[in-house]
């Protein structure tokens, strides 16, 4: 069965600092990987997705993620965090054929001035 692990439930960073949110997945074949963000009072928004090809994926709002098959990871990064990035971030994995999308428990990001 596919699964996603987000080991950090809560992360606090200073505004302007770099950010890396960790995501590890478990899936027997080539995964389809996603990062979603849920800002306070808002719905879930897709940041980026990986299906195949270049393992470094660029997303919206200056985010990027790197797929590392050897480590079963898909970590999300941003070089300089803005206060508006404070939100909850969800990593998700999709299977290859049955359209099943499984999410991690989320990482809540706090940005301090």
């Amino acid at each position: 069965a596919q699964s996603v692990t987000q080991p950090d439930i809560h992360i606090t960073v200073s505004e302007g600092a770099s950010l890396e949110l960790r995501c590890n997945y478990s899936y027997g074949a080539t995964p389809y990987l996603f990062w979603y963000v849920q800002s306070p009072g808002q719905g879930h928004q897709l940041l980026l997705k990986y299906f195949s090809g270049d393992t470094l994926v660029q997303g919206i709002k200056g985010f990027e993620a790197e797929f590392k098959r050897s480590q079963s990871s898909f970590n999300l990064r941003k070089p300089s965090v803005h206060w508006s990035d404070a939100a909850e971030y969800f990593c998700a994995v999709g299977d290859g054929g049955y359209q099943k999308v499984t999410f991690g428990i989320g990482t809540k990001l706090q940005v301090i001035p």
Partner: protein
Amino acid sequence: SQTIHQWPATLVQPVGSPLSLECTVEGTSNPNLYWYRQAAGRGLQLLFYSVGIGQISSEVPQNLSASRPQDRQFILSSKKLLLSDSGFYLCAWSETGGRYGELFFGEGSRLTVL
């Protein structure tokens, strides 16, 4: 453009009562449909998903069931609610076609079972 509507937004029900949450998608055909439950510390838990009318895959054995009576309608039900069914339920859809696209979420339904 495509839209997704989910209702009711808020529901307070006694233990043992039935439940029906409805989700409708407009502006697309044959979407994949999903029911998730979001809880603090548990993230988005996949409950059911459907790739077509009458095709329901259940992910978590529980007190709930799902149905897809029409192409763009997805219903979450229970015959007798439990306290543990309280939570925030999200419906979502995505395009079909063999490749993954973005999941589009409804506004959510907050269920409180007393």
